[in-house]
């Protein structure tokens, strides 16, 4: 099944008169996502060389890349054909980004759903934490909220449905799971994912113009368990602007 998906040619879908979506598949799948990253890398290169006239920006998702353009600067049909041609040639790329080690507190007040999740999965809370901290997650895409990462790689034994009744307020920086995904809420928000921990690290900073979102598609991360004292110390340092985010990088990106 995978082989046939890989060989399926990319499709060009119309998203109005100012965007095209280049679709590599319909599923959440590391191979398909590799093609997404490969295509974005090619667009990066062409854009740096000023060879993408009229293109404003592009947005990678699990399985597609949406290219926004200025219809007064670029002919929509010609650009669409060009993009489709590029998508057919671009290769696959995996884990091009950094590997992060991000502190997470799994203590009860940070992890309101930990006990329930453990019970549903037939294991102890400690075993859930071991699985969460023993997994290398990969960042598929950012969406839903600024800087909200969709993380693939959740062990199958932790697969859970969303809450039947979503919370009105999920605290900012909560680490959550749903389905086969893990995520982190950069902002306080309503949400139906199950909350297993909280990071003291700020996931989005609009004043950091160079890298407002901590994570980028193609990055990998591991959760590093910390106790409440360390959590609070890091949280204070972040609030005071004294925390060096670069210290969280375990491995530099290849891209």
């Amino acid at each position, binding site marked *: 099944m995978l082989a046939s998906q890989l060989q399926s040619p990319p499709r060009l879908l119309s998203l109005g008169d100012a965007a095209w979506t280049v679709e590599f598949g319909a599923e959440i799948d590391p191979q398909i996502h590799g093609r997404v990253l490969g295509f974005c890398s090619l667009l990066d290169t062409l854009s740096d060389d000023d060879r993408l006239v009229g293109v404003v920006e592009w947005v990678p998702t699990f399985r*597609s890349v949406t290219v926004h353009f200025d219809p007064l600067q670029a002919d929509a049909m010609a650009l669409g054909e060009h993009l489709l041609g590029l998508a057919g040639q671009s290769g696959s790329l995996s884990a091009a980004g950094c590997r992060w080690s991000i502190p997470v507190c799994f203590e009860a007040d940070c992890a309101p759903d930990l006990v329930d999740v453990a019970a549903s999965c037939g294991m102890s809370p400690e075993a859930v934490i071991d699985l969460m901290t023993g997994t290398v997650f990969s960042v598929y895409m950012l969406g839903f*909220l600024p800087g909200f990462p969709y993380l693939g790689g959740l062990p199958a034994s932790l697969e859970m449905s*969303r809450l039947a009744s979503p919370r009105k307020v999920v605290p900012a920086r909560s680490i959550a799971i749903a389905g086969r995904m893990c995520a982190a809420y950069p*902002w306080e928000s309503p949400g139906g994912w199950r909350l297993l921990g909280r990071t003291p690290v700020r996931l989005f900073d*609009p004043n950091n113009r160079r890298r407002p979102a901590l994570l980028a598609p193609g990055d990998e991360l591991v959760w590093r368990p910390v106790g409440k004292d360390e959590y609070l110390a890091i949280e204070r340092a972040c609030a005071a602007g004294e925390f060096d985010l670069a210290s969280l990088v375990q491995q530099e990106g290849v891209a």
Partner: protein
Amino acid sequence: MSACVEVVESGIAVTLQDLGRTGYRNIGVPVSGALDPIMMAAANALLGNDTAATVLEVCLSGPALKAVSGTLRVALTGELTGQILSANGRLLKVGAWETATLFPGDLIRIGSVSRGVAYVGLSGGIQLAGQLGSCSTYLRAAIGGYQGRALRVGDRLQCHPLSGDPWLEFRGSGVPAAQSGPIRVIPGPQDEYFTAAALADFFGTPYRVSRDADRMGMRLEGRALAHNEKGAEIVSDGVTPGSIQVPPNGQPIVLMADCQTSGGYPKVATVIRADLPRLAHLRPGDEVCFAAVDHAVAQLALRQQLAALQAWREAIESFRPPGVIDEAALYGGNLVSGAIRGDEAALHESVSMQGFEKGARHV
């Protein structure tokens, strides 16, 4: 040198907007920006501002602003009027599509929008550092605008002091580039997720605007659009302002300026750029019809809209407000054409509107 107004009454949900925030959609930051960038451009044109200068967007009731330093000018565009209470106690009405000058101590009380959105421009544009390359307010994540939120009493907005004759005002001739008829859309990207009957209903029957409408999106009510065997959910892909997504209940949602960057419902069609501003002026209960067009029609419509805006700019007239000695004859009629700058490319480069997904799949 700068001039400054203080917010004396906040109005309801008045936000600072410009042409939006591009370049950060890949990390989930919506475009935001004025819901009607043509009207925003008109406000700036009346003031001789740069087309992209930051303005106030009024959706319900407008603010009251007091000039605390400097002499400055305001412009109202859209269905919005105001009243000036001058420092020496005089009352002066300000009409829609007009400018008015505030001397230190003058207060302008801006009314309610009778339809859709309207704009208040200040001379030189509202001066603010902005975040991530834009002053547009995105309330949900408190990005941009005035501290990331709607205006409050006591906020102070900086602008440029008026240069030129403070007793010579300017006015435009109503809505630039007005359009009627169906809202034009380009089908897709997931029109293949709907039955033939659903597509016939979408293009053949009217939809009513519900009360559930804001800067993120607008829920419509009408014939339910049935998804075919492919289902009512997709693995999230990119969305844009104007995307018409259809959740499992079959009632379409048109995404607006503050919409998320991706979404998990099939999208039957996308409103073309030239017709996006029209959505901002619909009210609950209004009926809309959709018509499919192709890229060539969409591009022509956009060019015609810009040409109409330029014609509107060129037809701006000067006038002496009541109570001011009429010296207009002395100075001649149209004094402004040289003072008005129009940068169409800049206008449409980042003219974008985004919406949201209420009940998004994963929350």
